[in-house]
């Protein structure tokens, strides 16, 4: 039985909502904290968020983000 896109959305919505709120709250905490942030991982996370929002044919967001976060 293959789930339709609507069924996958229905099953995922609450978890996605929760994860987005957690991320939003973490970024709010970051913005509220004093001092400068020059950690290169911050730029990586911002790039990762851009990847999340893209819609590449065939998916692959997780793999692209993991490659972005890999140390060569």
């Amino acid at each position, binding site marked *: 039985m293959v789930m339709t896109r609507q069924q996958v959305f229905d099953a995922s919505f609450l978890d996605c909502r929760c994860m987005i709120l957690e991320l939003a709250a973490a970024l709010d905490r970051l913005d509220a904290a004093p001092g400068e942030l020059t950690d290169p991982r911050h730029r990586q996370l911002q790039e990762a968020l851009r990847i999340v929002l893209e819609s590449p044919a065939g998916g*692959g967001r997780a793999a692209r983000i993991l490659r972005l976060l*890999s*140390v*060569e």
Partner: protein
Amino acid sequence: MYYIQPHYHGISRTTEDYQRMADAGVVAVAEPSFWAGFDRRYAGTFIDYFRQISEFEPTRAAQYGIRHFCWLAVNPKEAENLTLSREVLSVMPELLKGPTVLGIGEIGLNRNTANELETFRAQMELAIAHRQLVLIHTPHMGDKLKGTRMTLDLLRELKADPARVWIDHVEEHTIAAVLDAGYWAGMTLYPTTKMSPRRAVDMLERYGRERLLVNSSADWGPSSPFTLQECAHEYRRRGHTEQELLEVFHNNPARFMAQCAKCPLRPLELHVL
């Protein structure tokens, strides 16, 4: 539903976990050798640890009807200490004869250093010489991609038999290379640093079930043996049959482990009466 938990560090868990795993359908576990939480100083410490996981842990698991197997190795983290590693490896051949020892593992890389690679190579050569099954740990987080490439390069160089090698902790960016090279690939379900149950089911649906293993590891850090059952539930929730679940969570581990003659586990098939 029957489960085999193929990668489980029982030494770091309470006995209650065995009871709860038995309640949840786990019939067997396999415990690889790993880091003690501190760097060991003496070869004797390793040897006593090997005795603990090959002699004592099976008795603890047996109280709850769970069969316990183990793997012996110098783990990737302590592989940095070449002198100690060589001393431990010198006594390994005799210890591999233990009645519940499946093979050599978990070996591999931690930070991808030259010393780790040397110990990895030595243990792979030992495994090949003594016809042992092999369980390989790939590094965590950012080191995983490079470490997996280094692992595949070494295995190719040593002409390891892919059917007898399990490369664990694969994620979305490493799984294809491992499967394409013919090895068994393990997905480890961890809350933060490895794969989640849902992502693991995504991988099962994308790559098929052949040569894929799922495990919880369950060790010193935040982890749970029951992510295995969470993954099975997600697989079932997406419409897969009970036989398909058995294939992933019992039969695949049985197929891999039974390549060691000491392991009597066999695949199961459901029949409607």
